[in-house]
């Protein structure tokens, strides 16, 4: 890979330890994938924030970088393992909270915005069409590539941090136009009625298109929350963090329809629900907000939950970013949800909080959430927002 004089200096350690280590990572990745050069990125989203996944060694690594590392571009953070302000209400141990706070301190010292959300595009890190960014968090990567038309690979925690300290990333993979060409035509012949249907559709396309880049037709209309849910699901159950959706993805009109055709019909959606839904009725955990709720979704929860009461046998979470919660506080939505016995949970989510062993079964609007909950040994139920609220109130699915 060709390096400029300035980049050579960074690799030699002239800008300190964090930049040197970062350049070593970026150069190795560039060489592995045959990148010709480094390119500037407009923003970075860093994953690997939960102490649950990092452990003491990960914390130590972050502390070493934080000694002299300062980010060069707008850098935001993925969810942590707990609500940073109100972790006690989530049943988090003192010991975990202490370690998690040390992780956050290290990121803060690096100059990173402590956003702790998987939806950076909702809280002020919104790339433009064609802009190169270096994001981790697969749902956000898919959203950036496919809904906005920005360009990013699916970064891991350390490679995203490296890009932040250098302000650049090697130009390979989805940064190059030649690799952003759809190779499977997915024709959706389904009438999608509720939010969870979009997760089920993501499951179908993820499984059927596998490692292909889908060109999706047949979607008549889609709002932000539906697209956010679809992005999370399709990449969780498939692999490539890029699709083209006719009429939605900017620039999709310049591509020809791929020859390979996959058809999604009502039966496929039904099968997705059957595969995701376990045989369980008592529900002790209901969670909406995977990806984190938009303010519109929080408002909808408050409307449905007003003057009702969450079952004493059930824990109910509305997971969102702290920025959305501030808006929800101002509108009174938080109070409505809390008065009903629910919790507006910030900075964390059902995928990264240490939930193993705490709940037996979960009902959620999120197909991605079901995938990760099974890793936490929970039985899973996927349903509409209305259904999930009913379940929270009744404490059971039926």
């Amino acid at each position: 890979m060709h390096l400029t004089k300035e980049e050579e200096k960074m690799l030699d350690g002239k800008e300190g330890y964090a930049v040197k280590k970062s350049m070593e990572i970026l150069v190795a990745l560039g060489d592995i994938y045959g990148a010709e050069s480094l390119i500037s990125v407009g923003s970075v989203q860093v994953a690997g924030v939960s102490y649950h996944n990092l452990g003491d060694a990960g914390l130590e690594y972050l502390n070493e970088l934080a000694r002299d590392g300062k980010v060069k571009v707008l850098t935001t953070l993925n969810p942590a393992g707990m609500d940073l302000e109100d972790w006690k209400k989530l049943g988090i141990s003192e010991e975990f909270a202490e370690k998690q706070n040390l992780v956050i301190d290290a990121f803060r010292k690096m100059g990173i915005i402590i956003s702790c959300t998987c939806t950076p595009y909702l809280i002020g890190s919104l790339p433009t069409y064609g802009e190169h960014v270096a994001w981790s968090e697969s749902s956000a990567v898919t959203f950036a590539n496919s809904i906005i038309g920005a360009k990013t690979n699916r970064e891991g925690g350390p490679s995203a941090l490296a890009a932040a300290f250098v302000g650049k990333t090697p130009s390979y993979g989805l940064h190059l136009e030649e690799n952003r060409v759809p190779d499977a035509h997915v024709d959706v012949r389904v009438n999608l009625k509720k939010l969870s249907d979009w997760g089920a559709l993501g499951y179908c396309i993820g499984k059927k298109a596998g490692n292909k880049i889908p060109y999706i037709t047949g979607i008549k209309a889609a709002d932000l929350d539906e697209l956010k849910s679809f992005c999370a699901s399709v990449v969780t159950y498939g692999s490539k963090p890029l699709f083209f959706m006719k009429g939605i993805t900017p620039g999709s009109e310049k591509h020809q329809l791929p020859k390979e055709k996959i058809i999604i019909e009502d039966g496929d959606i039904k099968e997705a629900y059957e595969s995701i839904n376990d045989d369980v009725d008592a529900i002790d955990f209901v969670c909406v907000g995977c990806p984190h709720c938009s303010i519109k979704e929080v408002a909808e929860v408050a409307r449905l939950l007003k003057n009702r009461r969450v079952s004493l046998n059930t824990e109910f979470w509305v997971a969102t970013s702290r920025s959305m919660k501030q808006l929800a506080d101002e509108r009174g939505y938080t109070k409505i949800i809390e008065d009903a016995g629910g919790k507006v949970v910030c900075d964390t989510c059902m995928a990264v909080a240490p939930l193993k062993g705490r709940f037996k079964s979960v009902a959620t609007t999120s197909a991605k959430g079901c995938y990760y909950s099974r890793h936490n040994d929970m039985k899973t139920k996927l349903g509409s927002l209305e259904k999930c609220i009913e379940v929270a109130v009744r404490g059971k699915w039926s």
Partner: protein
Amino acid sequence: MELKGRIIFKGVAEGEALTTSQPISFYGGVDPDTGVIIEKGHELEGKEVKGKILVFPNGKGSTVGSYTLYRMKKNDTAPVGIINKECETVVAVGVIISDIPCIDKIDISKIETGDIVKLENDMVRTRK
């Protein structure tokens, strides 16, 4: 025998080879506290990687695996060197942040478990 490859992380390391033809997932597939491979059904399941030259085709699985390698290095349970057929990002980033010498583009079928292997920059030297 001498084999020439591509440097992923430069350095010198020597040890006994532990070889598999199956990809390895460090996150969830290896216990960072013991250095034992725990992936169910893996041909190295139950084997300890500590102090070995670990030879496998490529990494797989979650990007958190890079941090797992780093945890192993700090816990003194990591392999002393890694040889891959085709290194991917999880292992590449893992060896760089952990300072573990690593070479790829090697015909790993030529290295057997128990061989004494020395990594030196882009060269692999093996003896029985």
